[in-house]
């Protein structure tokens, strides 16, 4: 029996609760209410997006509600899945990861309805191809990401190297020499090369880059053929395995992006593979390595290899359960227009998805290193998420668990590709 006292207390608390400030995020207007689930507005990126979205609302006379997503991508996917499973009209616009196209497909509106052929041509073709599932444009690219090589210009100079390495062999040699030299001088914690080896999507990206750069394909090709079990892929993995304990710390198998950056930014690494976000952080005023590094495209696997960069980035999609898809699409087009892309490039140093913007003088004035990026993006390799659809996570899990096991010394590269091939073939049946 719950006493009346308790009921009263609960009621009072409920009243107090509802007296709370309502949305700090609504801008009132007439028209339609659109809700978008985008980057958390606690961070700079989210703040920028939110301001932009509110601007749109004012301009078009609609009401906007901004929903912040959690920082972690898996938590975000989990949250979105609840909405999608319930076919909820509660959110109109979602920002989705580049690898969720297959998963999000059934819940998205075909954006070809709102973009003309010419408009679509303005975007990077590789990304548009990634976002198209069975002819349907699931989402439009918003900002993109690709894996790049960071290198210490001061150390390269010190040890007599004029240019960053072009092949993985060169990198291994340079990293070893620099590491030995620095350690002899007393920097016991210095590492040659740090990357992401953690058993998560992080190592999937890294390993895909190694394999693709040796000409080993991308696990499953867009035409559904499973190609992982080939000598080039095995060579790539063998090379990576040889780094652990030699030029990379044994703990690299637990490193995701931040752990690698932490070692690098404290000045304890000669080379790092990471996403572009680390550039601005490295150049921050209080950073130990500010002004002492630069970036370039990742090395090739031997003279016959190719430069590879794993494609990342986020896209915008309109919910199939939205009550006002046309208005939602209008918001998407606004957030994504060429002008906004340019602003985003200048203010947040995020990669625009339209090649034209990289030659814009204002953008280059703020971020001169963007000049190298179109080359990087030309070499972008997309993870086989579109071809595997809703099964992508299963493939990625099999891949990253086996690669991680190999890096820790638990199995050979041959066994690794065989295990992955088994799972891939099962999924493609």
């Amino acid at each position: 029996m719950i006493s009346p006292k308790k009921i009263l207390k609960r009621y009072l608390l409920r009243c107090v609760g509802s007296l709370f400030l309502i949305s700090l995020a609504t801008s009132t207007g007439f028209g339609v209410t659109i809700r978008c689930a985008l980057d958390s507005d606690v961070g700079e990126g989210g703040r920028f997006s939110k301001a932009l979205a509110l601007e749109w609302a004012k301009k078009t006379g609609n009401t906007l509600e901004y929903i912040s997503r959690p920082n972690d991508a898996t938590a975000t996917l989990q949250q979105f899945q609840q909405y999608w499973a319930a076919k909820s009209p509660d959110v109109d616009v979602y920002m989705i990861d580049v690898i969720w196209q297959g998963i999000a497909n059934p819940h998205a509106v075909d954006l070809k309805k709102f973009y003309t052929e010419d408009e679509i041509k303005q975007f990077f073709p590789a990304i548009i191809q990634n976002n198209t599932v069975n002819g349907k444009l699931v989402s439009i690219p918003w900002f993109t990401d690709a894996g790049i090589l960071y290198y210490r210009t001061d150390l390269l100079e010190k040890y007599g190297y004029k240019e960053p390495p072009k092949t993985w062999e060169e990198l291994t040699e340079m990293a070893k020499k620099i590491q030995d030299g620095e350690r002899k001088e007393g920097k016991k914690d210095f590492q040659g090369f740090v990357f992401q080896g953690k058993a998560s999507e992080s190592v999937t990206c890294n390993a895909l880059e190694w394999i693709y750069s040796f000409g080993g394909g991308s696990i499953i090709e867009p035409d559904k053929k499973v190609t992982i079990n080939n000598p080039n892929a095995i060579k790539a993995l063998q090379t990576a395995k040889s780094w652990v304990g030699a030029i990379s710390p044994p703990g690299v198998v637990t490193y995701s992006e931040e752990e690698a950056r932490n070692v690098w930014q404290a000045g304890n690494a000669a080379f790092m593979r990471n996403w572009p976000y680390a550039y601005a952080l490295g150049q921050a005023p209080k950073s130990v390595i500010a002004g002492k590094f630069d970036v370039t495209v990742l090395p090739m696997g031997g003279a016959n290899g190719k430069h590879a960069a794993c494609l990342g980035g986020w896209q915008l999609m309109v919910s199939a359960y939205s009550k006002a898809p046309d208005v939602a699409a209008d918001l998407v087009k606004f957030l994504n227009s060429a002008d906004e892309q340019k602003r985003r490039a200048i203010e947040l140093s995020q990669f625009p998805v339209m090649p034209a913007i990289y030659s814009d003088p204002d953008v280059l004035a703020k971020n001169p290193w963007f000049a190298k990026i179109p080359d990087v993006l030309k070499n972008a390799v997309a993870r086989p998420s579109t071809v595997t659809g809703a099964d992508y996570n299963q493939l990625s899990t099999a891949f990253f668990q086996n690669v991680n096991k190999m890096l820790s010394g638990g199995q050979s590269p041959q066994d690794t590709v065989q295990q992955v091939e088994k799972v891939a073939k099962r999924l493609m049946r």
Partner: protein
Amino acid sequence: MAREIDLMERQRRLAWFLIVPAVIVVLLVIGYPLIQVLVYSVLKYKLDGVTPPSFVGLGNYLFILTDSDFWRAVAVTLIFTFFSVTLEAVLGLSVAMVANSKFKGRSILRVAILIPWAIPTVVSSKIWAWMFNDIYGVVNVLLTNLHLIPQKIAFLATPITAIPVIIAVDVWKTTPFMALLLLAGLGLIPSDLYEAAAIDGATAVKAFFSVTLPLVMPTLLVALIFRTLDALRVFDIFYVMVGGQGNMATMAIYNQQWLVSFLDAGIGSAASVIILIFIMIFVILYTRFSKTSFQ
């Protein structure tokens, strides 16, 4: 005589009044999710929004029970549960007894022992993962500076070192839970019993075994069953510290992987039911073992 029967009746009626609301809340909260899990577990149900669910009987169960990944997860979970619960019980009781004694500064101790439990798990796991990092981790820095190890160890890279570390962190975090419950349980022991024991010439050790342990046993058993159930469902600490490493998944991580990452509601739900059955087995064992009867 009549008054006694009357009293019994009033007590019986009151008992119903008091128990039924709690039972209703339980059924309300857990009823639908339980039914959903049971129903989905016999379906082939991919949450891709395209394939319609179909009936597969025990197919999902068979898949899981023949999956070596699942049994590995079971092994990891059981090892973790055994060591962490045992250590937490022993340490929890010791800490509770220290906090129960009268000495200067015991209030500070009582607050301090609760701090590990009070910090959010994801934060404290991350702090510990930091501290055990192979380059900048405090543990490695200290151990190498004190020349206790020749070079830094990547603790979280392999199961041999990672699982003891995770157990240690969990013991750090959860001993307060045990200690707090046991502290309350120790409070139930009348101090005159200790006085009587002292008069009879019993040593501190004897007093512990003949007075303390038997009287704190009921509370200890309750603390044990809850701690064991929690340990069998462990997720956060493994997820944060060793993430997706396949050889260190727990049953709950396995479950989440199928349900959320792989979008397979069928297998995910079947995994949930299997875990439930596992836990029920433990509960039954516990009932047999526990001397307390509830009838």
